[in-house]
């Protein structure tokens, strides 16, 4: 898609003609990450039978999809590309309630994905758990890395626990971990890191894939204490949530320099305050 190539001094972001994120190229390091797919998917929340805990519903405490297959939120999407000197942006609209803006700033070292999800429709009486998935060509060999509740980043291995023999029962949620600030996958010379602007949850359910849950709306209580479904109807139609992911493509040896500095800049971002003034610039200055 020649009309929508985002490029600055450090990175290039390509899209295909269907509006899908195709690849991110790190120009300085001469490496790239290709995306098999990228976008919004949803799991159907298990409705459960809460008179018995083994049939527990997906709810506030429990993530329990009905099937391990996430469905795309739409088959088609629209893409609008805006190219200016300060920023280049691709606005990708999946449907009425899911969209993302992928931006590359002048001299920027990250690709910014600002996602917007909601209100999640429930008129089909199906609870939905919305994820963003980045399916890359990185050979991650079942391993992925997330930070653990504000402590150090830990290595996670799919369908495995380091201190006991693990029996796989929940193939998706059993591989979900907290993502409080970052998650990455890597191979010998490439690492793909996602910084988050808030605590989220996610995992790597297939090699090369990172998925992050960004919103959920469920119709059943999981009977672990909250006593009501996670269904924010108070405003009439559920909530809209907007957040950002920052994508870093670097070799493993240099990735930490970018994600540590970047996460601190996210956490301690500048505070903007406005003030009205009647003075023209000469008086003001």
């Amino acid at each position, binding site marked *: 898609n020649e*009309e*929508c190539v985002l490029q600055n001094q450090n990175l290039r972001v390509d899209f295909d003609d269907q509006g899908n994120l195709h690849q991110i190229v790190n120009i300085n390091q001469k490496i790239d990450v290709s995306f098999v797919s990228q976008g919004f998917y949803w799991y159907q929340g298990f409705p459960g039978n809460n008179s018995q805990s083994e049939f527990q519903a997906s709810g*506030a*405490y429990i993530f329990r999809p009905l099937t391990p297959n996430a469905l795309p939120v739409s088959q088609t999407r*629209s*893409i*609008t*590309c*805006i*190219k*200016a*000197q*300060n*920023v280049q*942006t691709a*606005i990708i*609209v999946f449907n009425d309630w899911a*969209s993302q*803006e992928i931006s590359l*700033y*002048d*001299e*920027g070292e990250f690709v910014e994905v600002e996602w*917007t999800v909601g*209100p999640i429709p429930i008129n089909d009486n199906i609870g939905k758990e919305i994820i963003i998935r980045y399916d890359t060509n990185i050979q991650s060999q079942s391993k992925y890395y997330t930070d653990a509740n504000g402590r150090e980043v830990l290595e996670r291995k799919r369908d495995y626990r380091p201190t006991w023999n693990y029996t796989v029962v929940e193939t998706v949620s059993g591989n979900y971990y907290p993502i409080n600030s970052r998650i990455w996958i890597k191979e010998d010379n490439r690492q793909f890191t996602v910084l988050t602007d808030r*605590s989220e949850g996610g995992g790597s359910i297939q090699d090369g894939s990172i998925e992050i849950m960004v919103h959920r709306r469920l119709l059943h209580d999981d009977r*672990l*204490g*909250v*006593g*009501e479904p*996670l269904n*924010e109807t*108070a*405003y009439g*139609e559920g909530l*809209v949530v*907007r957040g950002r992911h920052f994508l870093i493509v670097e070799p493993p040896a240099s990735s930490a320099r970018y994600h540590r500095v970047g996460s*601190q*800049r996210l956490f*301690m*971002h*500048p*505070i*903007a*305050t*406005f*003030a*009205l*003034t*009647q*003075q*023209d*610039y000469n008086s*003001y*200055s």
Partner: protein
Amino acid sequence: NSIFYLSEAMGVAQHHDAVSGTEKQEVAFDYAQRLAVGIDAAENVINQAFSKLLPKDGQSPPVSNQFLCQLSNISQCLEIDGQDRFTLTLWNPTIHPVVQHVRVPVRTDYTVRDPTGQIVLSELVPISYATQNIPGRTSVTQKQIIFKASLPALGFNSYYFEKKPEEEEEKYKQSKVKITH
């Protein structure tokens, strides 16, 4: 003590139900209300601090009231909507100088000056249709200004915005911003 309301609300929000979202809906509303009241009170602290930092030596000009635009993530800041002039002050809390791209929701184009009076490269770009249609968004603003701000370590810079005359606004339509659907 005006920052106490926010620090107390932040303390309450350390409860595991608030952290993980396992509180009842009415409790979620209460957390949000406490935080909102606390942030409003903390604005006074920001103003007290800037009232000491902003005046020049030997002068005591009246410092305009500083306010936050908490819905700027959906390109909404009703207080500056349609104003002829306003200022934006950015405080950098880190010990490193930072360069940051800033987005400001506006109806029309503005000239943006940095603290030395130089006009900075600012561009007027449209807000996405999806943003304009977010339920609850009340602003009619359809554009935003994007510019690059340079901030000193543990310090601030103020940027001065002045509405461009209509004939210059016309240039926007022939600007270098390229949009492809």
